[in-house]
């Protein structure tokens, strides 16, 4: 199902290639905020269940995302393919003279999609556009629980979960062109769409469950995305 959707996205994005004037390659680095509310609940529950006091010392903070793209640029709009890699994580920690406990959570997503923007204002070398990105959202969650006592590791357990959902990111972008290169600033809102929860192994029935709230834990990448892009445009010779 998901492969079919991806295939449709790619086909649609290259329909206008025949009429395009320019091809633009871009690479965006940005900072995202990540809600991850369900995982934060899980962290709280783990921390409460420990026989000793502990703290969530790192709780899915904002972190860099990376976004390469290629698009066809027309006079008033552009359309292309884009890939987004984003990650964040958390840690529950307790440490004293006798040892250390850690519960680390690392979550990242790989999100291929289609992107497009429409020019709303322009001057000599600059323009302001509204953009939108939509695509698949492959999320992976790794948890690592370790207990070290008197320098001896007495517990070390890793569990991997995954989930597949969709996303949508609308926003504004500003471009400034210098020859074939362009610089861009953009800001948008990342919205996670879909209902699949994290699961382990090959069966999506082995879901990560929030016992306290009686719900399965889903990836929650919702948040603000603010990025800076470098773009290179190849113009066609006519």
């Amino acid at each position, binding site marked *: 199902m998901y492969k079919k959707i991806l295939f449709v996205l790619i086909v649609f994005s290259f329909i206008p290639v025949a009429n395009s004037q320019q091809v633009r390659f871009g690479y965006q680095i940005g900072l995202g905020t990540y809600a991850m509310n369900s995982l934060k609940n899980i962290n709280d529950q783990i921390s409460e269940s420990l026989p*000793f006091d502990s703290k969530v010392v790192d709780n899915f903070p904002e972190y860099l995302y*990376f976004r*390469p793209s290629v698009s066809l640029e027309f006079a008033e709009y552009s359309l292309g393919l884009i890939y987004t890699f984003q*990650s*964040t*994580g958390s840690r529950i920690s307790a440490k004293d003279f*006798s040892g250390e406990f850690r519960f680390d959570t690392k979550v990242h997503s790989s999100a291929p999609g289609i992107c497009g923007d429409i020019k709303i204002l322009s001057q000599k070398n600059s323009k302001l556009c509204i953009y939108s990105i939509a695509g698949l959202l492959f999320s992976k969650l790794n948890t690592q629980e370790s*207990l070290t006592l008197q320098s001896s590791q007495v517990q070390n357990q890793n569990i991997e979960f995954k989930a597949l959902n969709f996303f949508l990111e609308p926003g504004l972008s500003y471009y400034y062109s210098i020859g074939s290169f362009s610089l861009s600033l953009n800001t948008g809102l990342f919205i996670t769409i879909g209902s699949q929860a994290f699961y382990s192994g090959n069966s999506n029935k082995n879901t990560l469950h929030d016992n306290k709230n009686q719900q399965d834990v889903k990836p929650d990448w919702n948040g603000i995305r603010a990025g800076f892009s470098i773009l290179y445009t*190849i113009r066609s010779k006519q």
Partner: protein
Amino acid sequence: MRNILYIFISIGFAIIITSCEYKPVGEFERNADENVAPPEIQVLDLNLDNNDSIFLYTGLEVAFRFASTSQNIKNVKFTVDGQETYNASITNGQFYVDYGKINEGNHTLLLEIVTATGSGSIAEHVGAEGFLFSKSWILIVDKSFYSKTTATSFNGFLKLAWPEYRNSDFREYIVTRDKGSYNEVELERSKNHVFIDSSYVGEGASYFVNVSTSDGKTIPWGHPIVKSELPLLSVYASETHQYAIKWGKFKYYNAVRSFNLAQSFNNGFTYTQLKSTNVYSDSAMIIPNAYLGDNLYFLLSIVPRGNNIMYNPDNHLMFEIKLETYTGFKFISRDTRIEEIFQVSSSEFVYSDRCSSLYRYSVSTKNSVDYMTYQPLTCSGCLFIGLAVSPAGKYLTSLHHLCDGNAMLIPTDNLNNYSLHNLTSITLSSPLYVSDIGTAIANTTSAGFYIYDLKTNLALAHYNKAGFQSKGISISPGGNYIFMTDDSLRMVNLNGTTFSNSWSDAKDNLPEYFGFDSSNPEQFAEWNGNVLSVKRCSNFSTIYEFPLTDSMIMNIDYFNRKILTYTPGTPGHLYIRDYSNGQLLSTIPVNLEIVEWNKLFFLINNTIVCTNGFMDFY
């Protein structure tokens, strides 16, 4: 070209940046006190010895209760040789040390108590940190104590001794005695591991020793079984021909109130008391009116001094010893009668035992000096039938055996050097009277008799007087004279293969006793009931004679020139007389009644040998 380069640079940069996945950071330093003083463990209850050693004689139920002055007790663990026996996170409880699963010997019992440290550390919270208190004991598993109880005699009493119970929960030992039917009677409670049973007189007993512990448990500690050891009764013959009864050494003499000796005169049906004594050393008495060969029955009853729980009329047999025996010196190992005795030399005789063995016994050395047995695989029953001895005792013959048909010639100086002879062609009708040269009279049922050389298996001569049953009844040591009957009583001389008459008389005048003299082969003794005459074989002339009016001649010891006679009475008497003149040499009273067909006594070199297996010396 440049554009393509830019594209690759951009892609490579993208890959590098993308690899920068978020890594969680930070740590929370907890408050924990590393320097906490350990608590003091209080033992509120523990039923194990404070000593370093615990003796395990049975399964052990260990109950414990501990308390800590400050930090909580987290875990209590008992191990035996490192193997966990009990492990729990409670401060009081109990567990079982399984005696059956631990080998005999020394083991280590280890108690470990773990308390919290109070540091509040992660390790403490996960149970990996605590104060450890331990105590170990040597666990001595004894699995052999039950068999170590001994029963011995001590100062004339039965003494039971058992290994000491060495745990501190000891209260006392309980000694009981089995009265039968699962009925035990308690004899003593004591802290000593020795018990003297002053009532036990050797009747046989079964005791139980139990250990009673302070918590009310009873541990089976020993089960000594004492076999009956009443004194042995025996009859002794003295040089003065008196017979004494005596009971032997006795372990439990001090426990006896009295020894009561009784004798039966009706083959053991009833007994009459002979003696009662409470003096241990007074253990013998001369048997009144006992004479050689008497069959005696005695009963010794032991009366305990103390309160013996088994001493009652129902159990009287436990306290009694019976003896059936004969007077005299015993020369056979078994209590049995023998059929016949054959003198074979001046001091030796041969007797058969159980029909399949022959013994040669020396009265001078008082020992068996030769032995043979004959038991063909296919034969059973009595194999020596119709035994006869040569006048000088050199050979013994046996009629052909019922199963293999063989007659036997046995040299008496070497019983095992016997030879077998198939005489089935001659239907024998009486013993093979044999001479000292190995020739024998082979009487037939209706064809007279043959003189048969058993060394060459040849018939040397045949005697048969038509119309009369000719029968040889004795042969001289040299084989040349045969005492026989046909129409008359005869002494015939065998010369080669022919017989010649030396003497004859009316057939009815068969002497009451007759025999060839082993020491004088040409002499023949005959007794007519009043006069003993010694005759020359050649013409039957009298060499000498003397009156002999005793009732019966038992035998004549030609080797030693003495006669044993018998005259019945109450008591009857055996007489030893001089063969040369009939002079009385010894008089021996006897209670046994002797008849002609059952001569019980034989004189051999001044020894009277009785077929009941006893003898006496005169």
